[in-house]
């Protein structure tokens, strides 16, 4: 290894991968180009579209702005890691059943984001459209408006938004919706 490359371990979907990386390599490129996990998409490569959303220690992030080096030893979950064997994650199933996509390119990012949205909501996180953010106001109801705001970091150029919101709402009512990952509850590391 040189001063600008390193050998690192990436833990993706429960599997450890040891690989040399150029320090410039983003987590997105490491997944796509090095680990052949191409389900995570590159839409803008600058944090402006959400197509590259993955879960890092259970939290959604845009992998295009995440250096692979900085993701070392953290738990990475990609779209390929959501289904259990043949059984789709409830969010995936709802997208499929309700046609929550068209070209499919933003879809993995939308789905990963939606999985995290359900966990964030379950953890009581407010959003920009939550009327009263004070904790005493309680957990906001996951209305269509709340889903839209929370999903807004995932652009869809085909305009599949209507069915995506329906799919997220359906998955929110499905059992085991947050089975794959859980957002760290607020204050857990405090």
């Amino acid at each position, binding site marked *: 290894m040189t001063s600008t490359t390193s050998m690192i371990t990436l833990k993706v979907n429960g599997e450890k991968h040891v690989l040399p990386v150029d320090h410039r390599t983003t987590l997105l490129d490491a997944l796509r180009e090095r680990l052949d996990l191409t389900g995570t998409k590159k839409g803008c*490569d600058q944090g402006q*579209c959400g197509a590259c959303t993955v879960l890092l220690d259970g939290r959604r992030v845009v992998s295009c702005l995440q250096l692979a080096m900085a993701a070392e030893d953290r738990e990475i979950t990609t779209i390929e890691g959501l289904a259990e064997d043949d059984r789709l994650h409830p969010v995936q199933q709802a997208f499929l059943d309700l046609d929550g*996509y068209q070209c499919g390119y933003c879809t993995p990012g939308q789905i990963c984001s939606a999985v995290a949205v359900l966990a964030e909501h379950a953890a009581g996180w407010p959003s920009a459209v939550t009327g009263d953010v004070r904790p005493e106001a309680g957990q906001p109801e996951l209305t269509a408006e709340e889903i839209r705001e929370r999903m807004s970091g995932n652009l869809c*150029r085909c305009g599949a938004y209507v069915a995506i*919101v329906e799919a997220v709402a359906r998955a929110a009512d499905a059992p085991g919706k947050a089975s794959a990952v859980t957002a760290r509850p607020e204050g857990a590391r405090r």
Partner: protein
Amino acid sequence: MTVTAGKEATRSVGTGLTRVEGREKVTGAARYAAEVPFPDLAHGWLVLSTAARGRIRSVETAPVLAMPGVLEVLHHGNALPVDAGFVIPLLGTPPDSLVALFQDDRIPCAGWPAALVVAETSEQAREAAEALVVHYETEPHDILLSGDRPDAVALDSQVTGPGVTLKGDLEAELAASSFVVDAQYTTPQEHHNPMEPHAAVARWHEGTLEVVDANQGSGYIAQLLAQLFSLDPATVRVRAEHVGGGFGGKGQISVHQVAAVMAATKLERPVRVVLTRRQVFALTGYRSATVQRVRLGADADGRLRALSHRCLAMTSTTYDFAEPTTAVARVMYDADAHHTSNEIVRLDVPTPSFMRSPGETPGAFALECAMDELAEKSGIDPIELRIRNEPERGPVSGLPFSSRNVVACFQEGARRFGWSERDPRPGIRRDGRWLIGTGTAAATHLVMSVPSTAAVTAEPDGTFTVRIGASDIGTGARTTLTMIAAEALDVVPDRVRIHIGDSSLPPAVIALGSTGTRSWGWAIKIAVDELRNMLIPGMTIPPEGITARSDTTAAVVGLMQNAPKERHTYGAHFAEAAVDTTTGEVRVRRMLGVFAAGPIVNPLTARSQLTGGMIWGISMALHEEAVLDEVTGGIVGADLASYHIAAHADVPKVEATWVEEPPDPDDPVGLKGIGELGNVGPAAAIANAVWHATGVRHRHLPIRPDRVLSALSDTVRGKATR
């Protein structure tokens, strides 16, 4: 197996079927162009011109070639020769000279490709491309489109029709009119921005050029690449299994493919070229800004005496592309005097291109807003005004309509939307900090069929295989065509396997102009008819199956010659908008579209396409605008943070539905397309709703908070000084 008589008692068309490739898409297994692995792959990175006009003086390749991993720098001094002088049958013209990549030192606009750096990794290629020094000799550039350009010319084209249509004495009819609207509407430069950036991998393998590409028609691209590189078409294979959106922006041969092929040929190894988002803005076409003047004159009961729609758009100095903006005026409304013209100004800019419902979309914005202004002036309800102006025959062509159910769409929409309770007065409904208004607009899109071929095989295991050079860019074509085949074969869709997105399949039209379902479906139906004739009950299917082939060329030409008609789809849009007059924010609260588009094959995916088009309308009405920088000639903020497209939070409950249409007995296929229809008119419906909310007309898009606030202050000032 043996062929058995009888039916499976199935009906596919008209029932919702989830996408054939749905599971692959929700699990991340679907691979798009840049995701197909090749051993020994090299990475190409384009270097675009920072000069807006001039010549490349020199390219300093030596320092870059010495950088780690760099394999090659291609530029006008060392590129492979290509021949871009051929005529593209679909367009009737040679291609944009943009595809004559690196053939000379000329720079006609900012963002023109100057070089391609190829390296072992994409990180190395990117850094080397950024480090490459290109010296330019610059010349003054001209990028300014305005309504008073004296150098505007009307353009006739094979694709977009005549530049000018003239009927009657416009000035006389205007003078005799009881109500006149004369307004200028402008729309900004808009970019397709499919979520998947353009990408291609090229390699030579066993004497064949293989290209895995992001495009709207692999057979078409293969044909053009063969011509450009003077290759035997049989030795070029292009594939595009999954395509992450196109909207017209992946319809033509483009820089990414040409660069990949050139580099792969020169380096004799696979090369991938992926555009950055910024490069997508610069290289892959866009919808021109438009400056439109609409003049309407109506008699006392609202009947149009005069209609004039003049549109100015821009094109480049390398290709004449005329946005066919007056297409809607040529179909929707007749008048005693009826004038339309599509004019272009040649500027030092990249070439605009077809973008989802080219022409109809900006044209419908202007014309359908003008109709709303006429409704306001005449005191006639906007829907009633349109009903009174329903033409008997094509206003320009004089041909009969094959069907025309726009009134049914308005009536059904009015009922569902609650239009009858609408108070026409603007600026009087308040909900907290919001002023509320509703608006409507008509939609129409041309119905075309383009010759296509297909092959359908009865397999020994009782399944059927459909092969057709179609493409699914998110339209749902793979699923829709499966259903069409299943219905024609009288089997459940599970028994039909379909192969598309590959130039080795039977040639078919690219995904363009909402022609896919109709053209491909027609070819599949004919092949199935033929296959059913070949299958005799009791016969044994041989191991290789029994295959029937079709070619719709004669049928398509025959229909155009024997039953010339105005063939279109129609619709009516309804929108409710809320405007905060203290901040200028506009929110669309609900939208409804009712469409008349022939039989709907798959209601599930049809709804997605139609609502997707309507959401484009929200995006166009409120968000999208690319601004050119006068100093550098390039776009200001060519990224998705500056160029806003509608996000989840901008999109309310959007409903799309359709009315039954009686079949046209002269039309053997019946199917129509819906890929673009939803995007014709929604921006006008929203703009009309904003007027109804506030009493202020917005004739320039997008209706941004700053423009709403400024217009309101102007109105207040105007009132104060009166």
